[in-house]
C-alpha cells in the first residue's frame, strides 16, 4: 500500500501522519466524507466555535442539559413543593405540601395543587386546594380553593375568598374572578362586603354587611349595588344596578357608579350616572340629575345633566349644575337659568324627572 504524506486536518494529535488519504478518517473512526469536506477549514471552525462559546460536541453531556434550562425561555413558571407525582399518561402533576407557584406576575401558595398539562406537557391549568394564598404586588388574596387558567391568566377563588389591598378588604362573595395579567377582579354571588379606606379620613374602616347587594365601605360610607367589579391597573370599581351610597350626611342612589382609588387605594372620586338622587339626612333636601361626581377630597358632590333641587318646599330647576357640600350640608347652583317655585304643601309637584321621593321612576 502506497502511503502519502497527507495529514488529515481533522486529527489533532497527528498520530496517523502517513495513513493513506483514503483510509485516514476510517482509521480514527471519523466520518470519512464529512470530515474531508471540511479539510483545511479546521482552524477557522475552531475559531468560530471559540467565538460562539459553544462546545464542539454540544448536547452530549447531560450536565449541559441541566445547565441549559436556566438560561432559556422568557418568564418561566416555577412550582416548588414537598413532594409530587407526575402522571404522564394523564397529563397531570399532583403537588403536595407547601406548594408555591411563582411567575413574573404573581405568586400562589397552597397545601395541594393539581396541574393539568396539554399533550406536549405544557402548563395548562392549576387547581389549588387548602390555604390558598395569592400575592401580586401589594395585593393578597386568600381562599379555600382556587382554579388558575394559564392561557387566560384568570384565577377563580372559591371557598370564602378574600382579597386584601393594603387596608382594603373584600370578602363575603361566593366566588371572586381575578385576572393576574390585568389585575381585574369581579365578584360572583354570595353576600360580599368591601372595606375601602378613605383617602381623607384616616381611621380604621368599619365593616358593613351588604345584604342581597354588593357593598363597599368608605370609612363611614357604604356603597351597595347589584354587581361590582374592580380593575387593579386603573384602580377603578364599577357598580351596576340599583346603586346606593349611604353616608352619615347623605344618601345617593343611581343606576350605575364608578369609584376611583388613589395610589394608596383610598377612594378619591365617585362618578354616578342614570337617575341620580341625593337626599340629605339633615333636612331631607333632595337633588336629582342625570350625572353626579363626588370628590372625596373636597366633600363636594356636583350634579349635572338637567339637575333639579327641592329644599324645604322650594323647587328649583333650569340650572346647569347643582353642588352639594357634604361638610356644610349646603346646596348651591351654577350656570343655566334657574327657575323656582314655592311648593304648596297640598299639591304634589312633578318635575318630569327622577322621582325625588326615592326609588327609580
Amino acid at each position, binding site marked *: 500500500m502506497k502511503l502519502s504524506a497527507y495529514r488529515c486536518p481533522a486529527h489533532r494529535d497527528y498520530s496517523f501522519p502517513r495513513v493513506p488519504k483514503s483510509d485516514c478518517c476510517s482509521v480514527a473512526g471519523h466520518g470519512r466524507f464529512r470530515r474531508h469536506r471540511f479539510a483545511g477549514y479546521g482552524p477557522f471552525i475552531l475559531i468560530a466555535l471559540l467565538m460562539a462559546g459553544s462546545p464542539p460536541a*454540544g*448536547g*452530549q*453531556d*447531560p*450536565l*449541559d*442539559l*441541566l445547565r*441549559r*434550562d436556566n438560561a*432559556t*425561555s*422568557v*418568564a*418561566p*413558571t*416555577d*412550582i*416548588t*413543593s*414537598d*413532594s*409530587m*407525582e*407526575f*402522571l*404522564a*399518561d394523564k*397529563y397531570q*402533576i399532583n*403537588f403536595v405540601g407547601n406548594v408555591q407557584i411563582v411567575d413574573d406576575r404573581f405568586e400562589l401558595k397552597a397545601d395541594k395543587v393539581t*396541574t393539568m*398539562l396539554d*399533550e*406536549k*406537557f*405544557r*402548563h395548562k391549568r392549576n387547581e389549588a386546594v387548602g390555604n390558598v394564598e395569592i400575592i401580586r404586588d401589594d395585593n393578597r388574596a386568600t381562599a379555600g380553593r382556587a382554579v388558575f387558567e394559564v392561557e387566560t391568566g384568570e384565577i377563580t377563588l372559591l371557598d370564602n375568598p378574600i382579597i386584601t389591598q393594603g387596608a382594603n378588604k373584600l370578602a363575603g362573595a361566593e366566588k371572586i374572578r381575578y385576572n393576574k395579567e390585568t389585575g381585574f377582579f369581579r365578584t360572583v354571588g354570595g353576600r360580599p362586603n368591601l372595606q375601602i379606606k378613605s383617602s381623607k379620613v384616616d381611621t380604621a374602616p368599619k365593616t358593613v354587611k351588604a345584604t342581597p347587594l354588593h357593598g363597599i365601605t368608605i370609612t363611614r360610607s357604604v356603597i351597595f349595588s347589584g354587581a361590582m367589579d374592580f380593575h387593579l391597573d386603573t384602580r377603578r370599581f364599577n357598580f351596576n344596578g340599583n346603586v346606593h351610597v349611604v353616608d352619615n350626611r347623605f344618601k345617593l342612589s343611581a343606576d350605575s357608579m364608578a369609584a376611583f382609588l388613589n395610589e394608596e387605594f383610598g377612594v378619591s372620586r365617585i362618578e354616578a350616572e342614570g337617575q341620580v338622587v341625593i337626599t340629605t339626612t339633615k333636612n331631607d333636601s333632595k337633588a336629582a340629575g342625570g350625572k353626579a361626581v363626588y370628590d372625596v377630597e373636597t366633600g363636594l358632590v356636583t350634579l349635572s345633566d338637567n339637575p333639579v333641587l327641592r329644599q324645604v318646599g322650594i323647587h328649583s330647576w333650569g340650572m346647569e349644575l347643582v353642588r352639594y357640600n357634604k361638610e356644610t350640608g349646603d346646596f348651591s347652583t351654577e350656570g343655566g337659568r334657574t327657575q323656582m317655585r314655592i311648593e304648596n304643601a297640598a299639591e304634589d309637584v312633578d318635575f318630569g324627572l327622577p322621582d325625588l321621593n326615592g326609588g327609580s321612576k
Partner: protein
Amino acid sequence: MTSWRMIPAGLLLLIALPLSHIFGNNILPQQTFRLKHFKLEGYKTSGELDWVLLGSEATAAGHRVVITRLQARLYLDSSGELLILSPSCEFDKIDNTGRGNDTIHVRNNSMTIDGVGFDFDLGSCRIKVRKNVRVRFFKDPVDLLGKETTPAALPESP
C-alpha cells in the same frame, strides 16, 4: 440403594428450580453481575422503542439492577421524549419500575422536574418525587433533551 436415596433430593431440585425461576432467583443464592456501559431497552406492543435505560455501570442481581449514572429516555406517542437523569437508581426488570434516594432530574421540551428521592414506572409513565420538588414550565419549547448519550459519556454526578 444409592439410586433410591437420590430420588428425594432429585425431586426437591425439580421443585426448587421452577420456583426459583418464578420468584426471581430469590430462593437460591443469587449471582451478581457487574456491567459497564449498561443499556436496557423496552418496546411497545407495536414493536416501537418505548424506553431506553443507560448507565455507566450496573450491578444486576436477579431481576434487580442497581444503575449508576442513570439516563432514561421515554419515547411517548404524542408528548415526545422524556429524559430522566439520576446519579443512581435501583431498577426492577420485571415491573419496569425504578427507585432511588438520590437527586432526580426530568427533562422535556416544555418543562423540567428536579427533586430528591424518586420512584418511577416506565409502563405507566409515572414519576414520584419525594422531596425538594422544583418544576419549571417554559412558555416556548426549549431543547433540553440533547442527543442520546452513550453510557461512557455520562458524567460522574448530574
